[in-house]
């Protein structure tokens, strides 16, 4: 009964979420492009891009929820996959600049000319092609996650130790990408983008299209994640989260299941990063900062772990709050506020906004003893 109800609730929740995204994908670009600026319903381009950024974070949050909320892998390095996807997109955008750079070199991005390089490094080959770059957006984070997961999950690293090495992973990449000789623009990263697929990235219509595309990818990401967690594989993954060794004694190769969700999740985070870069106009090593990955965990915890929709909600709510907070005199205290929020949610709303709202709603509808649901992390 309880599960049936939750699934029904979930379906409704999922449909509402999808409906909202479809509406956003259509209405926001419409309100931006077609309504006159004088109209109260007009959405300024800057607002649209800001929300586009939030939605990229929402996709990142869903990808983290897939591994953390459902499989119990607390990755503190998901920002790395996001940033790698972002760099792949950034490399494409750099190659599109062509001879319009400050130094007018048709092949080499400005920073390479500045470093006195004469040839494009081999790993930049192919990035002038959009399909190749998009493939890399998936492949680079996916491959890294696969290799990392292969070693970590096979040697049964779990819990805090796994979290720490994911954190180390993103930190190592942060240091690497800071280096000029890595060939990714060092400290400054990649910026001053001009075109994407021949359209000016700054143009209002391009930005509207990017926003709509973000909505579409968020829908796709959500549906994939939903499909995974609703399948039998999803049940195995939840079983691993709740009783890993029991799952093993049933004959499931736990490491392979973890590897699968971890890799899918990393690809999804990469796509989020790729959509993020053209909308904010820059990608630099700070995206690898360990704090970013930790913030993502907070979004998911705030929204409600193991719910997917909650993760997306948490990302938007926390980032909206961040924008409001950091634009006022309270700006220096943002990190304290974020920390306090995390503590508050952990102590008083262990199921996050969505889980708490759901409980409240259930409780109102009918008072039923739900002893089994008293624990955090709702499964289905």
């Amino acid at each position: 009964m309880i599960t049936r109800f939750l699934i029904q609730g979930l379906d409704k929740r999922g449909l509402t979420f999808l409906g909202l995204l479809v509406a956003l994908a259509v209405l926001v670009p419409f309100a931006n492009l077609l309504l006159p600026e004088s109209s109260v319903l007009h959405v300024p381009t800057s607002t649209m891009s800001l929300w586009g950024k939030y939605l990229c974070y929402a996709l990142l949050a869903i990808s983290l929820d897939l591994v953390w909320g459902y499989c119990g892998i607390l990755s503190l390095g998901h920002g790395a996959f996001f940033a790698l996807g972002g760099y792949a997109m950034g490399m494409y955008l750099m190659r599109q600049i062509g001879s319009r750079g400050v130094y007018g070199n048709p092949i080499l991005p400005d920073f390479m000319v500045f470093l006195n390089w004469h040839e494009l490094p081999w790993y930049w080959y192919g990035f002038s092609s959009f399909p190749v770059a998009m493939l890399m957006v998936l492949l680079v984070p996916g491959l890294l996650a696969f290799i990392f997961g292969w070693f970590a999950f096979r040697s049964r690293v779990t819990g805090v130790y796994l979290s720490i090495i994911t954190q180390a992973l993103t930190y190592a990449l942060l240091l690497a990408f800071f280096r000029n000789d890595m060939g990714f623009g060092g400290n400054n990263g990649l910026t001053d983008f001009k075109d994407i697929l021949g359209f000016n990235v700054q143009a209002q219509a391009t930005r509207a299209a990017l926003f709509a595309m973000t909505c579409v990818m968020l829908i796709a990401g959500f549906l994939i994640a939903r499909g995974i967690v609703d399948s039998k594989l999803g049940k195995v993954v939840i079983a691993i989260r709740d009783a890993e060794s029991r799952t093993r004694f049933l004959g499931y190769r736990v490491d392979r299941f973890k590897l699968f969700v971890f890799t899918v999740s990393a690809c999804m985070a990469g796509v989020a990063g790729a959509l993020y870069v053209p909308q904010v106009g820059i990608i630099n090593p700070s995206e690898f900062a360990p704090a970013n990955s930790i913030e993502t965990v907070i979004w998911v915890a705030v929204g409600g772990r193991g719910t997917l929709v909650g993760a997306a909600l948490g990302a938007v709510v926390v980032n909206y709050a961040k924008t409001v907070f950091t634009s006022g005199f309270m700006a220096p205290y943002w990190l304290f506020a974020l920390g306090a929020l995390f503590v508050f949610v952990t102590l008083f709303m262990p199921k996050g906004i969505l889980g708490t709202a759901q409980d409240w709603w259930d409780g109102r509808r009918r008072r039923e003893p739900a002893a089994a649901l008293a624990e955090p992390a709702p499964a289905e």
Partner: protein
Amino acid sequence: MIPAHAALTSSLLYLDGVSVSFDGFKAIRGLSLVIAPGEMRAIIGPNGAGKTTMMDIITGKTRPDEGTVMFGGSVDLTRLDEAAIANLGIGRKFQKPTVFDFHTIEDNILLALKSQRTVARTLFWKTAAVDQKRIDEILGIIKLGDARSRLAGSLSHGQKQWLEIGMLLAQDPKLLLVDEPAAGMTDGETVETAVLLKEIARDHSVIVVEHDMGFIRELGVKVTVLHEGAVLAEGPLDQVSANERVVEVYLGR
């Protein structure tokens, strides 16, 4: 050597000279045990005798320091991991019932149901009519049919024990290792569990660990007494319980 070899090839499970120690403490010392195909065996022994550790060794959770552990006369279990051993056909019910609390009872059975355990197969899994029928059948056997869509976490201790036995049935292993199935059960439930296990033993090999003597008597099978990690006595319950050493270390207390 030759008789030993014959014992090995005709056995389903063959343990010989198995030892394991934890931080210098020898939990199992020179344990030898042979289970024939189709046999049901009861294992008794005081707390800390090494009964659970023996199951850990058979199922690949613990690697023995020395000794032979063979399955089906030819497969060396010490070289395999838990998943591989499970897929060979060795199922296990844990001393502390472990079910998947956040899954429904039905899903717990589904997860255990004999099937290919690969990522691709589970991702695109569709429960076929035969599978559903088998799940319903098992839910009937363990008397949880009406509770099928409740979360397993909400079950009582005794019901969890049964659910775990149901999961074992769904796995359909060749050999079942059942660790204290009657713990925390009322007398009535204990009898029912014994009946259920005897039923299962008709077409499976079973090793049962229990402290409840009434339960062991109910089973009416050969008994092995473990003490300090080795076999102290073996035989019918009456014979074993007349053994002085057994009375001293276990039954007398």
